[in-house]
């Protein structure tokens, strides 16, 4: 540790102004601050600062994602052996899933971080930590059979068009990970829809008789309500789906971590859940088709609804910024997720589109919340001048 520090101090001058590798200042800085919290001290204002920084913040989100990742790896292996009709031990299953999931994670991180570093370098900024989270979210919202080159293209699109074009972390309008998924959905719909993509090996190989690979949502969309797995399977996650979305238990653990640490907004999660339940209940009352008649609890346990509202809707940059706005933003995400899911015939899930839609409207919600504050203040002043 001391040796690393000494080495860094030795090579540091080469990366500073006038040094041989001045151009790679941002890269050096990123690695240095990764290894060591900088020795910078306060100069103006508050002399002491909270120990929380952006690296810690992003680390917490990644920790909150780990349960879903671990379960996703296991489930990828489990679904594979299930489709082959074979029995396999726990570690065999995990190993199979690991081999399927790891490449997607690696491709996502390498592509995204390379672009982040290049942009930071070109701008002379420090490298932002935002992609640490996006890089993990992207694999978790993909089907396990996604071709790797598509992951790379989608990640590049999300980072360049979705984030850097707006000015980098903190300035983006849309959640980068969702943008990556939406990109594949619209550019290569065949690889992210249907019954074959969710279970490893199904796109090329054969499954045993009776195994379709269809997700609960696909069953629901086809009105095969009796085919939807029981509630406890939906909750624990022994079902086909995107890598990270299937286990609701893992998602609840992640949500608890986000809420306890104060990093994720419970207001958004809570109001989105409420919105989803409300919409499901309204559909129950209408009951025009079998999809509408699905009980609210089953409705929210299916698909990526919970994953979306816990990890995606709470992204502070693309969500509503005001506290009152967060309630409205979350509620509408829940409402639209279920509404799009039930009404959209082309694609069984609605959460992705609902969150992206509300990302667009978040600034508008905030605008009205802040305007209300302003008009209150202006009225108070006006009363004074009239009196």
């Amino acid at each position, binding site marked *: *540790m001391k040796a*690393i*520090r000494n080495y860094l101090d030795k090579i540091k001058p080469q990366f500073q102004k006038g040094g041989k590798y001045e151009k790679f200042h941002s890269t050096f800085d990123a690695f240095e*601050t990764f*290894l*060591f*919290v*900088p*020795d*910078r*001290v*306060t*100069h*103006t*204002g*508050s*002399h*002491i*600062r*909270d*120990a*929380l*920084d*952006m*690296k*810690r*913040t992003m*680390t*917490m989100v990644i920790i909150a994602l780990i349960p879903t990742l671990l379960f996703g790896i296991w489930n990828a292996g489990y679904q594979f052996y299930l489709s082959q009709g074979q029995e396999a031990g726990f570690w065999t299953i995990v190993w199979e899933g690991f081999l399927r999931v790891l490449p997607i994670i690696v491709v996502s991180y390498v592509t995204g971080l390379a672009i982040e570093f290049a942009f930071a370098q070109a701008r002379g900024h*420090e490298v*932002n*930590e*935002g992609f640490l989270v996006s890089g993990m979210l992207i694999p978790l919202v993909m089907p396990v059979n996604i071709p790797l080159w598509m992951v790379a293209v989608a990640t590049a699109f999300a980072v360049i068009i979705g984030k850097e074009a707006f*000015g*980098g*972390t*903190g*300035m983006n309008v849309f959640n980068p990970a969702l943008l990556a998924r939406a990109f594949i959905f619209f550019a290569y719909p065949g690889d992210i829809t249907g019954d074959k993509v969710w279970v490893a090996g199904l796109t090329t190989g054969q499954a045993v008789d009776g195994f379709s690979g269809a997700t609960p949502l696909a069953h629901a969309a086809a009105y095969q309500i009796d085919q939807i797995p029981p509630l406890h399977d939906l909750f624990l996650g022994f079902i086909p789906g995107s890598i990270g979305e299937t286990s609701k238990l893992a998602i609840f653990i992640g949500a608890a971590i986000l809420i*306890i*640490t*104060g*990093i994720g*907004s419970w207001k958004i999660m809570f109001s989105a859940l409420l919105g989803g339940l409300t919409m499901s209940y309204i559909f129950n009352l209408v009951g025009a088709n079998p999809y509408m008649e699905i009980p609210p609890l089953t409705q929210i346990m299916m698909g990526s609804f919970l994953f979306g509202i816990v990890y995606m809707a709470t992204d*502070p*940059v693309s*969500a509503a*910024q*005001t*506290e009152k706005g*967060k309630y409205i933003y979350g509620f509408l995400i829940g409402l639209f997720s279920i509404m799009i899911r039930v009404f959209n015939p082309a694609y069984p899930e609605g959460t992705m589109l609902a969150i992206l839609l509300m990302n667009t409207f978040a600034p508008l919600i905030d605008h009205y*919340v*802040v305007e209300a*504050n*302003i008009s*209150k*203040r*202006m009225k*108070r*002043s006006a009363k*004074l001048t009239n009196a």
Partner: protein
Amino acid sequence: MTKIIKIRRGLDLPLVGEAEKVVTGYSAKTYAMKPTDFAGLVPRLRVKEGDVVKAGSPLFVDKFNERVTFTSPVSGRIEEIVRGEKRKVLEIRVVKSEMDEYEEFRKGDPASMTPEEIKDELLKSGLWPLIRQRPYAIIANPDHQPKAIHISGFDSAPLAPDYDLIIHGKADEFQTGLNALVKLAPKVHLNLRKGEGVSKVLLNSKGVQINYFEGPHPAGNPGIQIHHIGPVNKGEVVWYLRATDVLLIGRLFLEGRYRPEKVVALTGGGVKKPQYLRMTAGACMEGIALQHVKEGNYRIISGNVLTGTNIGHNGFLGYYDWQISVIREGKYHEFLGWALPGADKLSASGTFLSRLFPGKKFDPDTNLHGGERAFVLTGQYEKVLPMDIYPVYLLKAILAQNIDKMEQLGIYEVAEEDFALCEFVCASKIEVQSIIRQGLDLMRKEMS
């Protein structure tokens, strides 16, 4: 009509080094007045090096309102006028003489004086700058008629001095000070902490409206109190000061002399034995650094750790300060510090292990704990700013220099000290207080 106001948002930082309730004497060889203690002030000097002054003799005045005088806290000889960049005056240092000599001012009960006479006396003696105003958080303009005067009867900042201890037994001085202030405004509010142990001197105050506040810091900030009792609207002026400052004003009228003796809390993890010290305003820290500060690299701050000024080991107590904080300098690299469990890390978030030990006290240092980033997290500032104001929107309006938006979002109601906790909690390490001051200065320039 007494009001009880409950402040819900805010944060009390649990720090080590609270001053024990013992008062000992402290005197220094050198004393100084610092024009930099006063936001936006352009000083015009009235003395040169070598001049002999008494306590209460003018050292400099406000260039734009020469009635506002700044006087010497002690009698002696002007040792040095310290200047900085562009010959900006930083300090006027006075070497204290053996014998104390005082300028004589009018002695008498302010109750029988006219407002103009009271103002005149405060202006001449150098006590006027204790009274500040919203908007802009600057020295009050004596030509204005304020809507009200607010006196904060407690300090809620980390390790803040206990006003009840300082004011105890000084009923005469305090009430005389209040008698002067009630002549200057149609209404005077005295805002006290709700709870046990509030000094009888404060509770028995006459001629003022007493309000009670409860809740975490910044409940003791005048800005927060004004916001909850009667917010400043465009075109209005509210004056404010601290209860401890009222003592100095009362003493002037009782004794006819400017004798700014203070009981200052010496606090923080860097102090050997945290306690109260009786000293005269503007005292040099040299003796404190030698006697009271632990061995090692420590920062001496005049004021509290959130809003004070780093004055160095040979600096001088600030004009408004009743507290000295000493904390460790944080100039070190921490290996993977952002990833450690952090049982000893002070944080308002729940991301460190220290969250599991409620009641634990911390000894934080001056390390920034990270690099500056764009605004990412939301809702952080709102949790510690008990005002009906959208802090991030206001800060962005200031950065964009959008005068209209600043006004609409409530710039008149705020001061940098109200945003100190926002700066503390900020995960993006944004210098919130400097931005607010920039905004106030810009607004003031625009409106004059």
